[in-house]
Structure formats: C-alpha cells, structure tokens
C-alpha cells in the first residue's frame, strides 16, 4: 500500500488510477457489468467478451 494522500485514506496509486481513467478518452466508453448468473458458460462468456469488444470498437 502506498502513502496516504488525502483525508479519505486514498493512496497515491489509487488517486493516480482515477486520474488515468479520466485522462484516457478510450475509457469513456461504458462497460457492461455482466452478471455471472446470466452468463454461466464459458461459451457465453466468450460471446459476451466479443460483444463488449465490438461495442468498444464502435465507440
């Protein structure tokens, strides 16, 4: 764990990660939070990953 950088107890590494997310336009796209119960098989997971990738390309 890095040094604490603020009153919320966030580390420098955590702050940097948040800033990185905001500073990268490619991360502006929205990511589907797929529920395990709805994607139970490896095949379905692969399909969901492909779909996310396709959406990412479109974005």
């Amino acid at each position: 764990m890095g040094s604490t950088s603020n009153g919320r107890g966030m580390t420098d590494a955590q702050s940097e990660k948040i800033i990185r997310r905001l500073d990268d336009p490619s991360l502006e796209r929205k990511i589907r939070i797929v529920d395990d119960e709805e994607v139970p098989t490896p095949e379905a997971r692969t399909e969901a990953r492909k779909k996310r990738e396709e959406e990412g390309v479109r974005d």
Partner: protein
Amino acid sequence: LSQKAHIPQLRAVAMSLLVVATGDNKKIPEAIDIVHNAAFRYSLELIGSFPGIIQNSKGRTVTFRPWLSASDSTQDFFIFCGRLLDAIDRRVRGRHEEFDPVPEEEPSSYDHAAFLAVAQTLCRAAGVRGAKFPPIGECFSTIAEETPRQLQESFLKNYLGNVMQDYFDGSRARATLPSLPPETEGRLRSEDAAELVKAVFSRMQAGNGPVNSGALQQTLQHLIAQVWLAESALDD
C-alpha cells in the same frame, strides 16, 4: 423476479471509484461496509416509509414517532430534515432513547453519504429548489405523491453518487486535470449511479411499495462484486 434484470453499463472511472471506495486492498467479502452499514439500511427503510406515514396522518400533523419525539415538532422542513438525520445517527450509535442498541451496529465511513442522500432525496421530492423551502405541510404532501419505490431509488442513486464523488474529490482529479468537463462529477450520479440503481431495482420484486432492505443489500453487494471483477480485467 417479475421483471427483466438490467445489465448495468459503467464508465471505467466509476468502476474504479467504487473499487477504491470499497477498499481495493481488501478481499470482496470484507469490502461490504458500503452495503451493510447501519446508516444506509436505516435510511433506506425510513425513506421507503415516508409516503405511508404521511398518508396515514390523514391531514393531521405528520409525526415520525418513534424516530422523532413531540419536542422535535417543527414548522420548518429544513429543521425537520436535520432532526431526522440526527435521529438516524443517534440510532446508529446506539444512543436513541426509543431504540435498544444493537451490539454489532456502529458508525461507518459511509454514514455521511447516507445522511446527505436522505436530505437530497427528501428535499428534491418536497419541491425544495434553490434553497427555497415550501411550507412543511406542502413539503409532506408533495413527498407523498412519490411511491416508496421511487424515493428509495432516488436515495440509492444519491448515496452511490455521494460515495463516488467523495472519492473523486479525494483523488484531486480536478486539480490535476483542469480541463475536465464541468459535468464530470454530475455524470457519476446521473449516469453511473443511475445505471446501478436500475440494475438493483430490476432484480427486486416488482411493485411500488418499499423494497426489503436485506434483499436490496444482497443484490447491491453482488453487483459491486461484479464491478470488482470487471474492473480487475481493465488494462492498467
């Protein structure tokens, strides 16, 4: 379930803020205070009971016993909100004279987000705009036009939005990236938190009445665990 479960779509920054807020140096089972703290549960239940309490008063003075005593009575909605939040806080701390203390309950770092969300939800529903407070009777009548479910949805959106904004501010992102669009923080609430709320409530029993707080907490915990997994798959 009687409705289709909504698959939430979040921005990477929202996912990471939730992971940081729930303690990314912990394992998932330990990082559940955001869902299972007493202030959140009492606030969710109290918000859901508002329309019923107001409607049951049938035009008489609205009382919130046992949360508030007769001496807490006020004609100022702002003061009412303050006294209600103080009552929830006293209960969380085991100091409310009308409730027995619960040994495992204690304040958490999320209490501020919960209390602020209660006030935001009530004031918005009551028609408070620009710090102008309508008469208290009008405030209650307006709140009673909302369903318990609508109020709870609004509360959860504000709660998650407050938590994410706390950590956004803590990251000092705006100081580091001065060109960030002004709506950046607002979108954490209006888009990302709203997506999670839609996902949570789509997994609840359909209806307009208040949701069971335990069921909501379990569902939210599960979704946040899914956010953890998805966030860990992002490239760093």
